[in-house]
């Protein structure tokens, strides 16, 4: 299926891009992120992060659907 992946802040700088369109069989954000790390090894050093699907916060084991926009957030640091 076709997924849009978006990277923010440190993830964007590590991946070297803000967004990519991928064809994947990954069923969950966790599996999808593992594929992203395989493509962009600099993503690997991050140990805690959040994921959103279509602008809703989501779990790493949520189910992905064709056309989803998946947002990978590095550890947040507001305030």
């Amino acid at each position, binding site marked *: 299926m076709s997924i849009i992946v978006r990277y923010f802040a440190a993830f964007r700088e590590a991946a070297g891009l803000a967004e990519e369109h991928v064809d994947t069989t990954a069923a969950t*954000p966790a599996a999808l992120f593992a594929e992203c790390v395989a493509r962009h090894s600099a993503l690997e050093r991050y140990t*805690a992060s959040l994921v959103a699907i279509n602008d*809703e*916060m989501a779990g790493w084991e949520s189910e992905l659907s064709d056309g989803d926009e998946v947002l990978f957030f590095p*550890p*947040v*640091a*507001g*305030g």
Partner: protein
Amino acid sequence: MKRFSVSAGPIDPDGFRRALVDPSCGAYVQFEGWVRDHNEGQQVLRLEYEVYEPLAVKEGLLIVDEAMERFEISRAAASHRSGLLELTDVAVVVGVSAAHRGPAFDACRYIIDQAKLRLPIWKKEHYANGAAEWVNCRHCAEAGHAHHP
């Protein structure tokens, strides 16, 4: 006033508190996060906040609503900066008015604690030695919440 907003320009903390004045309230607590001149032994010159606004606003409103439900308070609001900030600039402000001070303190703390954990906002520190780094929230990493596998 919006219960949560992202502000691209300077936050006015006094205007913020005035909007929360309520004649039924005997207590008001305001938290402000300021840009401080050091972090982990490095001298900080300025900060940059990246905010993913669609989700930050949605999640920010949710956090304020949670506080309104959990604590006996009358009004609550929060605002977070985006963009480039200088030393002593206000990065975030949270205000809560209530009949009594206990719930006002508790709700204010709840909102800022949750905001730091949940809002898609990232901080890049610019140091005196010319370097710049995205700041990891060590506490979040230690708390182990929402780790990717």
